[in-house]
């Protein structure tokens, strides 16, 4: 702690850099692993982006392949599937975004209101379990439950209604996509907000009680203002996902019958770029997608900071 304090104060600025590094050596050693992780797995592979501007040939390699500029980007904009893919990507992304964050807050607020600690912990544990299941298992459970011979359809038939082939019906796709996501991650997402709520001083609640506040008012005037900054942060961090809905999840849940609503940029890249061997074309779409996501994140951060400078990054 002493070292951190000294670094912050700036009195050591006059000292040599090497001395300052030596004094904070343990912190730098701790930083080394994540630093290497980002360099090796996130920065060095960025070189592969150049594939988007080349006619990549696996035999010649990235360096040896011919430079073609924006050819693949132009081809993508002229692709007849492009409007549909873009619409699907945005629709799934926006709906997912709208359902991210606030269900976690509601669950955290509800759990926070529970006085029985054992019951609260039990509920939280049960709700957390799906988060630790692999996405493949979660989607497998959903697909099997919703298949024509699955449990849901057996119940529907017992109630005297017609069976529904949920995973083959485009109108059900987004609902299945969102609900499986909520089932898997709401419990875990609520943990963060619960941690924030547990750090709120009880004196604030007591004061509110003295002022005559009821349960709902205490939640509204004390609890919610404490979770808002984290909510704003999660909104900024999640905004990038609008253009990048979960590729794996869509791949596991979609079928040709639901392509009209479920086929997104990433799944198209997979089919055409990887299966079709058009690596440069796939890289170009991926790169374009990433640039748009970055613009979205930066602009959201800018807007949030304009609203309240403490909420931005």
């Amino acid at each position, binding site marked *: 702690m002493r070292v951190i304090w000294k670094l912050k104060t700036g009195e050591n600025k006059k000292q040599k850099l090497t001395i300052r590094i030596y004094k904070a050596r343990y912190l730098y050693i701790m930083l080394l692993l994540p630093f290497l992780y980002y360099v090796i797995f996130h920065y060095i592979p960025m070189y592969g982006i150049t594939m988007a501007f080349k*006619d990549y040939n696996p035999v010649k390699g990235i360096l040896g392949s011919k430079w073609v500029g924006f050819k693949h980007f132009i*081809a993508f904009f002229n*692709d*007849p*599937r492009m409007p549909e893919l873009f619409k699907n990507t945005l629709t799934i992304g926006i709906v997912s975004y709208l359902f991210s964050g606030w269900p976690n807050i509601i669950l955290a607020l509800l759990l926070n209101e529970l006085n029985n600690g054992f019951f609260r912990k039990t509920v939280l544990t049960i709700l957390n379990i799906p988060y630790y299941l692999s996405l493949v298992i979660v989607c*497998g459970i959903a*697909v*099997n439950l919703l*298949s*024509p*011979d*699955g449990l849901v359809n057996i119940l529907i038939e017992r109630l005297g209604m017609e069976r529904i*082939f949920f*995973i*083959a*019906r485009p109108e059900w796709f987004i609902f299945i996509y969102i609900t499986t996501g909520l089932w898997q991650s709401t419990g875990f997402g609520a943990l963060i907000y619960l941690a924030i709520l547990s750090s709120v001083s009880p004196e604030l609640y007591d004061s509110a009680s003295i002022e005559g506040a009821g349960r709902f008012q205490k939640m509204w005037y004390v609890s919610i203002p404490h979770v808002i900054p984290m909510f704003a942060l999660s909104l900024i961090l999640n905004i990038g996902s609008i253009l990048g809905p979960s590729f794996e999840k869509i791949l*596991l849940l979609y*079928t*040709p*019958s639901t*392509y*009209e609503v479920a*086929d997104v940029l990433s799944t198209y890249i997979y*089919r*055409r770029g990887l*299966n*079709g*061997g*058009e690596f440069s*074309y796939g890289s170009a779409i991926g790169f374009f997608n990433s640039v748009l996501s970055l613009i979205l994140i930066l602009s959201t951060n800018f807007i949030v900071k304009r609203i309240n400078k403490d909420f931005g990054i």
Partner: protein
Amino acid sequence: MDLYHFPTLNMISYRKDLFDKAGIANIPRTWEELYEVMMVLKDAYPESYPTYFPLVADIINTWSYMFGTGPTVYLNEKTGKWTCGPIEENSKKMIKWLAQCYKDKLTTQDFIKPDAQKQSRQKLGVEEPISILFENTWASAYKTTAIERGAPSDFEYQYMDPLTWENGEGGKLTMWCPVIGSGWAVSLNSKKKDAAFKLFDFLYSQEGTAWASFGPADLGITTSVKSENGVPPKPGEPFWLSPKWLDPSIPFTENVYNATGFLQIFPACRWQDNTDIDAYPEVYAITKKMLDANKSYSYFELPSSALTTEQFERFNAVFTNANDTAMVFFEKCIIGSANVDEGWDKFVSDMKKFGIDEILKMLDEASSKLAK
């Protein structure tokens, strides 16, 4: 890369014991007869499904041959021209046949799920009396392990002769068998090549043939790891052939791939030659007959080497979109969320809109260039 290849076959097989119990004496020779037989089996076992379909992608790529047409692009051997299979009349007939089977619950209702085939294989002979199988010969691994998993003692699969369909537009005899559908190959540079050769040698041997349950005389699947005919390998020797090692829920080729890291080849007909056939006489007797009758059962090969980079990119763009469109339409028609007759004209026009005629012309030109 030098490759050593071992081929596999696609066949239709049927459960002889269930056919006998249901009093089915005549084995189907046409698709209409197969449908009728499946209806009889459905009446006998109303709660089960007589067969299971593969994913729509496999229906387009392989089943289409059985109905006298072909995949999204294929070489029509009657005309010598490149053709688009899904927009041909026989594809329409195929979809109608499949849709009728689906509607009458003759196939599993969830076959479009990625793991549906795997789940059906796990039930083979044990939980459900699945009577008709469209699988490759290595699927015999499921059949042999079915007895271990509790199939009845009289459980017996036999191969069925290829079915015929009127006037195949594709120019092939209409049958479930492009002879050698897939195979395994191992790089001669592979560190595991010794293990691969050992396995191949075993499979080419008489003992290996029997173990793989092709049946020594009549090509019937009557043997199992417990039977007298199928000589089981001694426990742990060689380790990869121990029945315990096999995962019955996945194809045998995948088992081998998982254990040894062999490269799985599809299609593998470029390595097809009569040496392969001769080396495995019991298994390939029927195939050889087919080969002698008509030499053109093998898969087509794209004339990729005669296409320019731009042409190849154009081909890929059109092919991906056309193939996707065909999959969407076929799947919807089979499960009943679209009507074949009502949607056919729009489907054909959508396929053409993507530029299918343009790439067929391109492939014809490339083929002629190669021929010269």
